[in-house]
């Protein structure tokens, strides 16, 4: 009995120690990424390449999802608002939901599954096929050459993707609300313009998306770099990237919302 209890406790202890250890390694890795970022800023071509593969190649999924989310918001919002006879406020509802919450959060979730998983798989495979080791043997620091440009490329892309998601969503809301259902176009836009504050809403949304971008990319890079160099290891790391960064996005969103909009 006592022995079984000791086993359970030891198991828990080992897991906690392993977890803390891994957090430490990840933090150190993140610090190294920042430390070795200088080189890639001197060679902006490296970052531009990553903006293309993380940002531009994610555009389709971001734009299409944005459009549909906006259209659904338009429908649902109209249904609710018309009960109170205030369907002109549809513009406000659509714009604020998107700019404050759905834009940064959903865009980041999509980004994690589209670009984050790709980063993890790519770096994991580079490691498995000894490309990272080959780079080290050529006296090229892989954190500076491979990791840092991907980090900055993705972090720069994220707010733009979130902005485009929101813009597409507002257009979707307009399509359903104004064009399809027939809400007054003038009040749709003017109420939106009057109610959405640049600093309170737009800027906070941008800050959120930058934070999510950093979190997703840091997780994706670390998981890739830390992946065991086997097919199974890389596939597990890719799954972990999507799961961990999705949870991180939602957790961070709550914290940021609490700070930004309630002034906690």
């Amino acid at each position: 009995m006592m022995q079984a209890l000791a086993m359970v406790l030891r198991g828990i202890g080992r897991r906690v120690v392993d977890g803390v250890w891994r957090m430490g390694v990840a933090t150190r890795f993140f610090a190294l990424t920042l430390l070795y970022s200088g080189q890639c800023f001197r060679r902006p071509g490296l970052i531009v390449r990553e903006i293309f593969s993380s940002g531009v190649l994610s555009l389709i999924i971001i734009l299409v999802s944005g459009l549909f989310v906006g259209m659904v918001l338009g429908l649902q919002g109209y249904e609710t608002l018309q009960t109170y006879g205030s369907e002109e406020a549809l513009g406000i509802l659509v714009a604020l939901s998107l700019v404050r919450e759905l834009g940064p959060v959903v865009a980041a979730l999509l980004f994690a599954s589209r670009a984050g998983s790709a980063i993890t798989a790519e770096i994991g495979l580079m490691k498995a096929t000894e490309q990272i080791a080959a780079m080290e043997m050529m006296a090229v620091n892989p954190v500076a050459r491979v990791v840092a440009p991907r980090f900055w490329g993705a972090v720069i892309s994220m707010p733009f993707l979130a902005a485009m998601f929101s813009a597409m969503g507002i257009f979707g809301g307009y399509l359903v609300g104004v064009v399809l259902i027939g809400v007054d176009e003038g009040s749709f836009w003017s109420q939106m313009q009057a109610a959405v504050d640049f600093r309170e809403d737009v800027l906070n949304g941008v800050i959120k998306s930058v934070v999510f971008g950093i979190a997703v990319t840091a997780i994706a890079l670390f998981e890739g770099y830390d992946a065991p160099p086997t097919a199974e290891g890389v596939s597990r790391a890719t799954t972990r990237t999507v799961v961990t960064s999705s949870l991180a996005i939602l957790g961070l969103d709550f914290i940021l919302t609490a700070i930004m909009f309630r002034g906690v």
Partner: protein
Amino acid sequence: MHGLAPADPAVSDLSIEIRDLSFAYDQRLVLKGIDLTARRGQVIAIMGNSGCGKTTLLRLIGGALKPSRGRLLVEGTDMSTLDERGLYRLRRRMGMLFQFGALFTDLTVFENVAFALREHSDLPEEMIRDLVFMKLNAVGLRGAHDLKPSELSGGMARRVALARAIALEPALILYDEPFAGLDPISLGVTGNLIRRLTDTLGVTSVVVTHDVQESLKIVDYVYFVSEGVIEARGTPAELRASVLPYVHQFVHGEADGPVPFHYPAPDYAEDLGVVA
């Protein structure tokens, strides 16, 4: 013979000097009391069966691992005293050929060979182009310069990787299993290339391999590693004539001998449950 070094060479003639080196992963001793030297212009082979520690030895020479005990000098530099910057400086004078080439899959053949030149020099693009074409010509693949690594055969990828390894005109080239998984023609081509490049560039080559027949044709000196110790050493002719059981088994590819066919296991009859 291929320019064997004189019997009593000057110290500066040594490209690699290893004295009483030991290495342990965690608590497990992988290499024990290794003594090994390689003179400039030599091709030396480190042979042994899978898991004997020969790749670990190569990684130690490349500076990817640090010895637990003993001296390891590469190009006159004590590896244990190097910090990261010093190690990277030394590595610019080393080339390494990985087992399956380890080419960068997102770059073309040309860009792969140009990689180190672009990272470490400010040479104008025309000069890089000329240098890359010269290296590719040396391995016979100038015509393949705009292919992607995925379009190459195993043997071609290995040759491109070799061109990449010599891009910075290294003094020392390390080969990790250069013959693994090659067809007989590619095998001969790769072997000849290793010999020819060593002779024409005046470099030192260290080949880790278990391909006895191919490597005995091209190397100057062989070290046999077994279970972390150097079991035998000598020129190819000496090893072919060796009567040491382990070397004999290895050189002639016999299935059973000092290296048993069976992984240690309990009694067979007992495992099958047929004990009388």
